[in-house]
């Protein structure tokens, strides 16, 4: 195959492929939402999507701009109150995968969406935790997707908003009633997984046309590569068509009043 596609499209398609029928996915806004709906519209029509606004098993035709666009409620099986969403559905153990984005991520997959700099005198104030701290610990496992850059991939996050594996990689050891945590990170360059022992993120697959140097240059720590480094399969024509249609529909919908 010889299709033209962008690195963003490669990221979305790869992230989408992480989801399967039978999964119940708590979806973060932005890239995770794009990937989750692409999955639903392609190989995983029965994947169950949940948004923190209370919409259970929703099937939006366009991507929501916010976490609670009307489209999410109208296409949902039902919509529950937000306390119920966090108590019964997330904390109650009904979510198999939490799908998150982030501003900053470190080598142990800890996420920072709180601030850059010092808490008392922030250089940049970010939106905050939102649903992520408890999605990351109460979901069965966590997928993370974001663009690869040195600013985003840092050795140690400025602030652990959301637990990956802790500042030493042992943050989940001996903690009862906690999920597996991040099992894969999908970027526009590669796929990473935590080392089974140390929990440090390791590149397991490079996207087509991406070199090790590209990843090294975009990562703020000495990134390691798996011994059996794979090449991520290219997007199919069908995936690209559906992704592009979804984004075009979404753009038209958001441009209107």
């Amino acid at each position, binding site marked *: 195959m010889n299709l033209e596609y962008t690195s963003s499209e490669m990221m979305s398609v790869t992230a989408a492929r992480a989801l399967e029928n039978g999964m119940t996915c708590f979806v973060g*806004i*932005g890239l995770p939402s794009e990937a989750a709906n692409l999955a639903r519209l392609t190989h995983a029509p029965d994947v169950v999507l949940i948004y*923190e*606004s*209370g*919409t259970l098993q929703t099937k939006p035709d366009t991507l*929501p*701009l*916010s*976490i*609670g*666009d*009307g489209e*999410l*409620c*109208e296409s949902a099986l039902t*919509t*529950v*109150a*937000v*306390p119920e*969403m*966090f*108590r019964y559905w*997330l*904390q109650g153990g009904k979510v198999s995968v939490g799908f998150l984005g982030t501003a900053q991520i470190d080598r142990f997959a*800890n996420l920072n969406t*709180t601030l850059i700099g010092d*808490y008392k005198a*922030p250089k*940049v*104030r*970010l*939106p*905050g*935790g*939102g*649903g*992520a*701290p*408890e999605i990351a*610990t*109460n979901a069965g496992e966590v997928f993370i997707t974001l663009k690869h850059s040195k600013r985003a991939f840092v050795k140690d996050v400025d*602030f*652990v*908003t*959301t*637990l990956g594996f*802790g500042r030493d990689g042992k*943050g*989940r050891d001996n*903690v*009862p*009633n*906690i999920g597996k945590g991040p099992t894969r990170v999908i970027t526009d360059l590669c796929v990473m997984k935590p080392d089974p022992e140390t929990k440090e993120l390791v590149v397991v697959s490079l996207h087509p046309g991406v070199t090790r140097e590209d990843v090294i240059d975009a990562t703020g720590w000495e990134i390691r590569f798996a011994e059996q480094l794979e090449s991520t399969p290219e997007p199919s024509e069908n995936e690209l068509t559906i992704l592009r249609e979804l984004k075009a529909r979404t753009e038209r*919908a*958001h*441009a*209107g*009043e």
Partner: protein
Amino acid sequence: MAEFLSLHDAVARYVEDGATVAMEGFTHLIPFAAGHEVIRQKKRDLTLIRMTPDIIYDQMIGAGCAKKVIFSWGGNPGVGSLHRLRDAVEKGWPRQIEILEHSHAAMACAFEAGAAGLPLAVFRGYIGSELPSVNDQIKFIECPFTGERLAAVPSVRPDVSIIHAQRADRQGNVLVEGIVGVQKEAVLAAKHSIVTVEEIVDDLGATPNACVIPSWAISAVAVAEKGALPSYTHGYYGRSNRFYKEWDAIARDRDTFTQWLDDNVFNVAQHHAGEKA
């Protein structure tokens, strides 16, 4: 029983300077008309509680109403930062504000606990997060049955909660439908409550288990047609995603913001400034 008041009178009576105020609406049914009325009445030193501050609190913070914000996610959803919130936190304009931040799970449980008349919420949260190191209102307790360590936060019990809903009947009973967020909890947790509605009807048309808040659990009902714009009201009108995107440019600059506030909030006779946005 809820009293039917104008939005002006409801805000004048129940929102006092220095009060703790929760204006809720999880992306849906955000009480913008009421927020603008609070700005017009120049309420000051408010402690503003809201899971998702959104641009309604950006406007109130930029207008100088807030001294403290308690929240769990402060952004322009799907667009980016709340520039007025950031300007206040980072540069102290128009005044320094204090922030107290939680996760969504914590605040959702805290609203639930407030509605349930409890002093605290207990939940499985904040594991491995550094938020407890910057928020002294996050504690941990031990389950007396299993020994498990669980998070505890104080319940939310505002002086006044303000929400927007689809409609009220002539007795002041209110129907909330669609993404209902923590609105019912906000009303039940508060000492006083104001509900703005799109319309007053003879019959709510509610199904047996609909989210209906009885009149006797509400202080005041005020009509505010299109009172949620640029947010939306399920069954009435859609979200102005365009305005949410435009807000980014308006809010980036202090002068542009001040001009917007003059044109769309202060120099507007009626309550529904949001509608013109």
